[in-house]
Each structure stands twice: as C-alpha cells, then as structure tokens.
C-alpha cells in the first residue's frame, strides 16, 4: 500500500472516532426530543434552548467555584426546571388545542429563550474555565482526547440508565403506558400529567448535561442551542422518533456521516449531509430506522 492509502485509512478511522463523539452529543439531546415526542406527540422546538439554559447554569456554578461534578448537576437541574416551568405554563394549556398550535407555541418559546438569553446573559460568548485539562493520547496516527473519552463514557452511562429506567422501574412503565395510549393510561390510574412533567424534566436535564459537555469544547452563547437542537431533532427522526434506542442510533449515524463528509470532502456540506440522510431515510422508512409503520384505520 502506498503512504497515501495508509493515511487515508487512518483518516477514516479518525473521522469515525470523532463522529462517534459528536454523535454522542447529538444522541444525548435527541433522547429528550424523542421522549417528549413519544409521550405528548409534540416536537419540542425549545429543547435546544434548554441545553443553552443548562450550560449557562453550569457556567455560573463554576463561577461560584463549585466543583465540577456539582456544576454538571446544577446544569442538569437548571435545564430540567426550565423545561418543567415551560411545560406547566405554556405547553400544558395548549396541549388540547391540537398539534400545530402546540408546535407554534414551542417555536415561540424557543425564540423567547434565545433573544431573552441575549438580553440577560449578553450576546458575547462565555468560556467555561478549564476545570478539565485537555490531554491528547496518540495511537499511531490516531489522536483521542480525554474529553472525547469523557463524552463517550457519560453517554454510555446515560443510555444504560435510561434502559433501566424505562424497562425496570414503575415510572418507566408509566411512561411507556402513557406513550402507548394516553387516555387508556389515565383510565388505568396513571397520573399522566405527572408522567409528562417527569419526562420533560428528564429529557431537558439530559440536554443540560450535553450542554455542559459541549461547553468544554466550545464557548457558550445564547444562540448555541439552535443548530445542535435542529441536528438532534433530525437524529431523533432518522432513528425513529418516540423510540429511545432510535435517538441514540440516529445521533451516531449523523455524527459519523457529518465527520466523514467534512473530513473527506468539504465541511460546507456538513449540514447538507444531515438533511440528505434525513430525507433518504424518510423515503425508505417513513417512520425512521427503528420506527414501526402504523397503518391508519377508518
């Protein structure tokens, strides 16, 4: 093999690893989208903004010299609380009005948090103080940083936790029941409002976690949630919206595809490839890779 081919193979492997790391972040955010959609059939456009709010909460916690793990907790709590309040004040009253009004309200909430964030936090980006020193490990031509490993480990833990939560616990069972049929679940004595609130809290706190992890890589600013929010949403749909493993799968697919295209071709087409995958998947499997095709009955 020529040197170029060897470099090419190393490169592909590197892009794959970078893609998995980026995909983990997409997956963490996509999980929240999917859980909320699975239960209330609402595309929660403000989800990316919960990520932003969470990361800012974490940033302020670090400014107060709280230790790192506490700041992550603060980020998760902050994002979760913001979601619970939004759900209670805005989404719950509109829920009965149909899906399109609910969607518009969600978009309104998203804009409100973005522009409100610019007023409160200021438009200039904030950087998280370097609580974790970045270390680079080299394996041949490969480079992996400790931050990448951290992101991977955290995502794996979260995925295992979510599996345990939905399959093994009572609240998980209630979530699945509500997602299956909200009225029947209510008749079975499940307090669906409580389940919905819990789902919003859980989903947003994962976004807050992702926001904090992102904060180690890039600066924080009030508009930071829009792009990752949109990508995560696409990831959730690609995997099959409403299905938890689907969100993770979609996140990884998108992350890897984007990095391969950006690395081997041009990063101008990074966003394009995500949307292209989205459309191709929707045309082949209209309800996502892991989604079930449901026929409408009369």
């Amino acid at each position, binding site marked *: 093999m020529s040197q170029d081919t060897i470099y090419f193979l190393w490169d592909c492997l590197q892009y794959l690893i970078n893609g998995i790391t980026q995909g983990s972040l997409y997956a963490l955010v996509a999980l929240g989208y999917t859980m909320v959609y699975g239960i209330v059939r609402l595309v929660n456009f403000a989800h990316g903004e919960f990520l932003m709010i969470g990361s800012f909460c974490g940033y302020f916690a670090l400014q107060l010299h709280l230790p790192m793990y506490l700041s992550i907790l603060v980020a998760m709590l902050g994002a979760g609380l913001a979601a619970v309040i939004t759900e209670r004040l*805005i989404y719950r009253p509109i829920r009965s009005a149909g899906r399109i*009004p609910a969607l518009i309200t969600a978009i309104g909430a998203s804009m409100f948090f973005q522009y409100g964030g610019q007023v409160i936090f200021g438009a200039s980006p904030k950087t998280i103080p370097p609580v974790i020193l970045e270390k680079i490990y080299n394996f041949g031509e490969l480079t992996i940083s400790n931050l990448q490993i951290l992101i991977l480990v955290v995502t794996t833990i979260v995925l295992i936790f979510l599996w345990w939560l939905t399959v093994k616990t009572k609240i998980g069972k209630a979530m699945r029941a509500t997602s299956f049929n909200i009225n029947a679940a209510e008749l079975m004595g499940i307090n669906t409002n409580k389940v919905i609130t819990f789902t919003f809290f859980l989903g947003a706190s994962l976004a807050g976690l992702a926001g904090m992890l992102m904060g180690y890589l890039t600066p924080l600013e009030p508009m930071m949630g829009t792009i990752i929010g949109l990508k995560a949403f696409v990831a959730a*749909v690609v995997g099959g919206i409403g299905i938890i493993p689907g969100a993770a799968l979609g996140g990884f697919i998108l992350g890897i595809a984007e990095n391969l295209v950006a690395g081997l071709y041009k990063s101008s087409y990074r966003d394009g490839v995500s949307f*292209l995958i989205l*459309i191709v998947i929707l*045309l082949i499997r209209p309800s996502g890779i892991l989604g079930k095709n449901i026929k409408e009955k009369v």
Partner: protein
Amino acid sequence: MDYILQLILMVGIFIILALSLNLINGFCGQFSLGHAGFWGVGAYMSAVYSVYFALPIPVAFNMLIAIIVGFISAAIAGLIIGIPCLRLRGDYLAIATLGFGEILRIIIMNTESVGGPRGFINIPKWSNMTWVYLCVILTILFMVNLKRSTFGRAIISIREDEIASETMGVNLFRYKLFSFTVGAGIAGIAGALFAHTQQFLHPTNFTFMWSVVILVMIILGGLGSITGSIIGAIVLTLFPEALRFFGENIAQLRMTIYSLILIILMLWRPTGLFGTHEFSIKKFLGSKS
C-alpha cells in the same frame, strides 16, 4: 414615505406567501415547513434572469418574465420535492420539507454566481406597488374561486379525512401534488416580487425560521381561512416594525417581546383569530343590525 410604502409592499409579498402556504397547509392539510425554500428558489431564479439574461424589452415585460421564471422554477422545485415526500404524513412531511428547504439554502450558499454567502447584489428595481398588489389580488381571486370549486372541495376533503375522501373517489396523490406544486409556485411569485423590491438577496432570508414565520401567519389568522391569512400576514409583518417606535431601550428587547406576544396569542386563541371562517360583508352587516 418610502418606509411605509416599503412596508406595504412587504405586507403584500407576505400575503401572497401566507396564501400559498395556506393552500398547502390550510386547505389540503399537508404540513410544510420548507416554504421559505420555495420562496428563495423563486427569488434567486428570477434574479438570475434579471441580472444575467434580461432581454432588451420594456421593464414591464421583463418583470412579467421574471415573475413567470419565479413561478415555474419554484413549482418545479415543489414538484421534485412533492413527488417523493407527499407519501409521508403529518409531522414527517413537515420534517422532510424542512430538510429540503435547508438543502436548497445550502446549495445557494455554495453557489458563487449568485453571490454565495455575500448575497446577490445589483438586482434591478422592477417591482412596484402595482405589480405586488396585482399579484395579491390575483392570488386572492384564485384562492377564493378554488375554495368554492369542485376541485377545491376535493382538496379540503383530504384535509378533513384522507381515507374517507379516497373512498369517495378523490385521487389523493394527484390533488396533494397539485396543491403542493401550485403553492410552491405562488411562493416563487412572491420570491420574484421580493427580489425586485429589495434588490438584494441573502441566504439568511430563506432559513427555516422564515418558513416558521409564514406558518405562524396562517395559524395566527386561522388555518384554512383566506381572510385569516391576509390578516396574519399584515399583523406579523408590521408588528416587529411597530416595536421600533417605542424608543431605543426597546431595541434590544424587540425580539423577546415579539416571541412573548406570539406565545400569548397562541394560548389565547389556538385556532387563530378567524378559525376557518371568512369575512363576509353580509355577515358583518347582519351582526350589526
């Protein structure tokens, strides 16, 4: 009063956009989130005509050709996107159209001959009040007549219940594709008018957020209502501008207030200001006497 005239022009353009989306979303019940993409295709293609290929004929004819170019190019885009996507339903269709809208924008962004990220400059100012409102009136007439026709009733029946309308003999796919293509084409007309009013185009004019703005217009007015779309377009075009008149301290808060009012309006009237009803003089007088 160039400023007010300009706003009236923008109101006209957004009325056309709102009505065209109403055809897809309000009449036919197909949820599209990529409408700004069709608007952009019409705008850019008509501007390509007027900048690179304009014929040495009077301005009025050139503008007419630009509008036709806008209509046809956007309609073709609508057809290409509609054929595969219209098999999808509800939220999935919305997401697919969102994806296509963004892809169209990314293509524009990477095309150097239309200015790429700098924006498309030196577009002639061919459009004026007459052109815009002529198109507005034609669009309204088209929509009103469509709503009353057999063809329109078939489209509305798809919105109400796809399966029932199919059993009544409505060819679902054909009617959906018709409303999607024509809706996209009309958005292309709005694009041509916009390009020759603004004289400048930029890819950020056609992002997903603008699709949302158009969608909000028709929902705020009342989905399926022609009057509602018109009112929605007027209110949402003028409202952010009206906020400019409350002093400098508001400047930073302008968009926050805008989004807050959007939420409050939706909570207050989720079906929009008009529901699916239309304004009629008879009813108006009747309620008074």
